[in-house]
């Protein structure tokens, strides 16, 4: 009986939502058109990258900060585990071998995605995710031990992308322009620089979320 009431209420709510969606008028501002009109000024040729890194760069800046904060939360919660070597002698030789072959290719894919972001789908987030996936794959194959405590280099790597982004976004402020208002001639180069930093940092952050939380027994999870 209770289940029936819940199901009926959910169905009614869904129907109301669908009705509201059907009532929606056309969007008051034609954003795709204004993005296309200003694409020249963004420094890149792919509209999604132009929005993410230039027109709405502030959102991306804060997104990266949120991801870093999530990792800091993991570290602050305390990762209590003993440093343990990854066992290289996994019973199955196929996975470690395949990982050794795939990881360099994944790094290349990440670099390509980063480069391609300027003119076609791709960009720092996707490239960082592929880097992190390579690290997770190596860990699962028993080739890369889980992280215990981030050392100095890793800390710089984790925070570097965000710091670089902040530095670049503060630059125009010193020159008397608005925050994140890249100079026109330099926009493309600056965006590539930011994205390169973000790729490394996001890769490390996403990999860290896995490698810090996993309990170090690679390949046996």
């Amino acid at each position, binding site marked *: 009986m209770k289940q029936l009431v819940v199901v009926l209420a959910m169905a009614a709510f869904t129907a109301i939502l669908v009705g509201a969606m059907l009532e929606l008028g056309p969007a008051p501002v034609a954003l795709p058109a204004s993005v296309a009109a200003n694409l020249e000024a963004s420094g890149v040729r792919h509209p999604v990258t132009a929005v993410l890194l230039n027109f709405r760069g502030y959102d991306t800046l804060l997104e990266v900060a949120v991801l870093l904060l999530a990792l800091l939360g993991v570290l602050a919660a305390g990762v209590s585990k003993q440093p343990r070597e990854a066992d290289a002698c996994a019973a199955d030789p196929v996975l470690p071998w395949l990982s050794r072959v795939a990881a360099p290719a994944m790094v290349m894919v990440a670099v390509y995605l980063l480069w391609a972001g300027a003119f076609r789908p791709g960009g720092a987030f996707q490239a960082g995710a592929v880097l992190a996936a390579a690290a997770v794959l190596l860990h699962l194959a028993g080739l890369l031990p889980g992280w215990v405590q981030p050392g100095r280099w890793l800390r710089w790597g984790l925070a570097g992308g965000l710091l670089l982004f902040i530095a670049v976004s503060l630059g125009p402020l010193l020159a008397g322009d608005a925050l994140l208002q890249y100079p026109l001639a330099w926009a493309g180069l600056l965006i590539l620089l930011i994205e390169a930093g973000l790729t490394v940092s996001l890769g490390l952050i996403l990999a860290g979320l*896995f490698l810090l939380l996993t309990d170090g027994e690679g390949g046996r999870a």
Partner: protein
Amino acid sequence: MNASLALDILLAVTLLWSAWRTLVMPRLDRAVVLFIVFGLLLALVWARVVAPDIALAEAAIGAGLTGALLLDTLGALRRRGKDA
């Protein structure tokens, strides 16, 4: 009915079906695998609505990394159960 419409309908139905199966599956290991399947199907759907950027992110983060994290959690839970 042309082929692309048939593909879209097939995608939509499998997506909803995999989401439902993920939620009601009593065995956690199978639920995690179904979740990964759901993420990959969702990536295909994003690609079909011409949002390749989101499709890439969904496949890599939504299906890949989250799935790996869930599998790892499952392994840790199982080991802890064995120890206790």
